[in-house]
């Protein structure tokens, strides 16, 4: 088993990060192109705790090295990950746990990501993954499979951070524009109310 871990700080509030996180893999993110689809399978709010639980299916397309393909039998370019996330609005925590659906009899990848506020303007991101090759045979081959996947995690993490920064920046801009638009509409309607009142008087 190999372990990968990574932590980052985003200079955005937890509310902004947890909102933008839902569209981390949208066209604004031009770095994480290995994620080709994200589908929500189930979603519910626990009436007692207020925790929002979401199941998503994430479809990735990433070319595997040739030696790994020949070892595992070819068709591994497209794979699916099952992610369950828990948003706790009281403790302001987002926890996401993911496991690979594809090839799960040969490789086991368990990933946990936690977003927590550091203060009103900063949010921490903690990522850890356990990678275990289950296939029988030589330890040397298992090690090589695990090392390849750890390397992939590392590369995707760097791209993921860059891509998410772009999504955060765009989200902030779009929300600000939306608020401005609503403010202008409010001012306009107030102005017309005043005009109507003036005419009536």
């Amino acid at each position, binding site marked *: 088993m190999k372990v990968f871990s990574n932590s980052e700080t985003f200079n955005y509030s937890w509310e902004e990060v947890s909102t933008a996180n839902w569209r981390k893999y949208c066209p604004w993110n031009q770095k994480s192109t290995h994620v080709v689809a994200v589908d929500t399978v189930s979603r519910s709010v626990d009436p007692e705790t207020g*925790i929002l639980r979401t199941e998503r*299916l994430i479809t990735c397309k990433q070319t595997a090295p040739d030696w790994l393909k020949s070892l595992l039998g070819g068709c591994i370019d497209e794979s699916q990950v*099952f992610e369950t996330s828990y948003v706790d609005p009281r403790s302001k925590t987002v926890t996401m746990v993911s496991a690979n659906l594809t090839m799960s009899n040969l490789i086991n990848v368990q990933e946990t990501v936690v977003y927590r506020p550091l203060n009103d303007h900063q949010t921490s991101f903690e990522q850890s993954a356990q990678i275990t090759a289950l296939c029988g045979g030589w330890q040397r081959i298992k090690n090589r499979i695990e090392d390849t996947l750890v390397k992939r995690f590392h590369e995707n993490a760097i791209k993921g951070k860059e891509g998410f920064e772009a999504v955060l920046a765009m989200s902030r801009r779009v929300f600000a524009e939306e608020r401005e638009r609503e403010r202008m509409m409010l001012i306009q309607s107030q102005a017309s109310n005043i005009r109507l009142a003036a005419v009536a008087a």
Partner: protein
Amino acid sequence: MSQSLAPECNEVKERYDTCFLKWYSEKYLRGMGTTDNNECAALFKEYNSCLKGALKQRGIDKLLDEAREDNRENDATLMGKKK
């Protein structure tokens, strides 16, 4: 927004995702979204029925059930039910 793995579900998925994001940022995070029966429920139902067919067709539905089963312990811990 991101794509669906089933192109035929993209249109309804987009509408649902937009609805959800608005609900999440404007209601849920402000403590006003405690019920499941919200304004996005009908869209989710439509999206989900489209997706279910696509998952079944690709044989992913069974894998999902197994993964959900494997995740029970995380659920117990993270839903705050296990002290």
